[in-house]
């Protein structure tokens, strides 16, 4: 039995939109907030992602942050190491790095990533090794790679994998973690579940378990804050409890959580105190 963590990625928002929603995501109790696009649908500049998350560190205190970056020929290992170290320090050790599929040259991307992730112990300048600063606050910076990298590369880099619907389940025993992405049609989690709540949630649990995942990463592409708020609420109030419960509890938890979500009762809100006599 796995208790899944619930992560959400919001690649449809710009940096300002992300900042506006981030405190709400944290307040809802979700485990991780990701920026960048783990599905590769939207192309992001890595510096844009890091900068946006820098802002998020100022408006959140607890939620883990995921930076999903794409490496290409213009990427720099020194930049990446400094960006990651700074972001992890600024967030007090809340960062996870995600890396998209190599676009140009897989071997070059692998080399760049390896150099970045070892830069804090030494960067060679003129034959001398100089540590890049600041090192991350976490002794080991968690990292996950797009599934195209493969398990061997993930193992060598001490990484986990991000798997999607088309990916075979990884062998997994050496992997640090596996994130199973879920995309919802129209980004409307509420509408998606409305027909068969327990069935929909059970499917997500089973596909995540089959992938050997420790987390389910919901990728919501919408740029509409209100639609996102609605979906985030359903994720927090319905999906998250079901991802954390035991198999035999799924039906009960689904039914209770959905009913509470849907049926506003007289005991949802505390009545106002009676006026003093």
């Amino acid at each position, binding site marked *: 039995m796995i208790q899944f963590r619930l992560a959400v990625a919001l690649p449809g928002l710009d*940096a300002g939109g992300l900042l506006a929603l981030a405190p709400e995501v944290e307040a809802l109790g979700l485990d991780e907030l990701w920026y960048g696009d783990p599905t590769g649908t939207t192309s992001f500049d890595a510096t844009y992602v890091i900068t946006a998350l820098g802002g998020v560190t100022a408006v959140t205190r607890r939620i883990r942050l995921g930076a999903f970056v794409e490496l290409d020929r213009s990427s720099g290992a020194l*930049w990446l190491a400094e960006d990651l170290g700074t972001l992890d320090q*600024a967030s007090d050790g809340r960062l996870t790095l995600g890396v998209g599929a190599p676009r140009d040259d897989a071997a070059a991307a692998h080399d760049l990533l390896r150099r970045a992730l070892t830069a804090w112990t030494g960067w060679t300048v003129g034959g001398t090794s100089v540590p890049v600063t600041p090192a991350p606050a976490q002794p080991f910076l968690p990292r996950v790679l797009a599934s195209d990298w493969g398990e061997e590369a993930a193992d060598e880099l001490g990484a986990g994998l991000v798997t999607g619907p088309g990916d075979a389940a990884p062998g997994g025993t050496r992997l640090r973690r596996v994130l199973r992405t879920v995309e919802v049609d129209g980004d409307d989690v509420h509408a998606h579940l409305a027909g068969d709540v327990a069935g929909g949630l059970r499917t997500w649990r089973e596909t995540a378990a089959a992938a050997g995942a420790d987390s389910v990463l919901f990728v919501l592409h919408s740029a509409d804050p209100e639609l996102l708020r609605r979906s985030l609420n359903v994720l927090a109030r319905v999906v998250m409890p079901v991802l954390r419960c035991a198999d035999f509890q799924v039906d009960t938890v689904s039914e209770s959580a959905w009913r509470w979500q849907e049926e506003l009762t007289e005991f949802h809100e505390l009545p106002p105190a009676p006026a003093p006599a």
Partner: protein
Amino acid sequence: MAVCDEFGLASFSQKSTYMEPMPFHALYDQTIEEVQLAEELGFDSVWMGEHHFSYEGQCPTVWPALARLLAATERIKIGASVLLLPFHTAERVAHACAALQSISPGRLRLAMGTGYRELEFGAHEVDRTQRGALRRARMEELRSAPYAELMGPTEIWMGGEAKPVLRHAVAYGAPLLVHADLPHFKVVKQVVDEELAAGNGTMPKLGVIREVWVEEDPVRARWFRRRYAELWHHYAGIANAESPFQTVATSAKVDVKETGTGPGITTQDPMDIADMAIIGPPDEVAERLWEFVDAGAEALVFHVRVGGMPTAALQENLRRLATEVIPSIRGVVR
């Protein structure tokens, strides 16, 4: 006759030295608290520097750090002084600015600088002899498509005291921020005036960074001076230790040179450097700042966290600057 209408703070760059060790993440929180106080007190701007390979936590990548400050404040201008432009591509700068403008439109400034430490050039695999050309090329790229749109309303300043930087500021018409004592600020102004007389551009807004501490008590004033000297001595030692990387000698004081080696720190007596700081009671501090205004400064940027400053003392200094010094200068014509 110059009128000074802007007051800022410089070098909020997160340093945990042996004088005041603290966790790096706490430095970032401390910076936010100080910038929020600066905003509350009516300061106009805060500037963060960029340097690399700093054991004490100085932020090497200004982008996420600037984003934090923009996210935590509402009005105050947030800037990088200087951004070491040869170490960034125009693409990286433009995308970072797009994110920062998205977080808080219209409050971002970048003072474009060139860098001088051979170690940093070596690490970035940038030919130091090409740094001026790189700075100019990057700035041209940034005001052209496709990057100009991403830059949005980012205010471009120039940062540095070398002649090529001054000429570039005049040619570009960009405000200029220099870290100089009064004699060297006057030299900067002279160079700018010569460029203008030669018809090489327009008069830039001139800003100056100075170490400033409001204090009547001679014992506490000496404390600040010694702290500043200690810090300078420390960084001089670090610069000397970098000498294997340094193929161009650094000069002692802020110098206005044709080649522009940057503000070197390796040969000057630290106490002489500390004497360049402006320390004293409010009226004396104001009068010494007026000398910069009379010499053409329109923006005064105070360097107050000079290493190991206890937070309470720093906050008191900011309050006194805001209430006892700045009002006698801001917008005043004399």
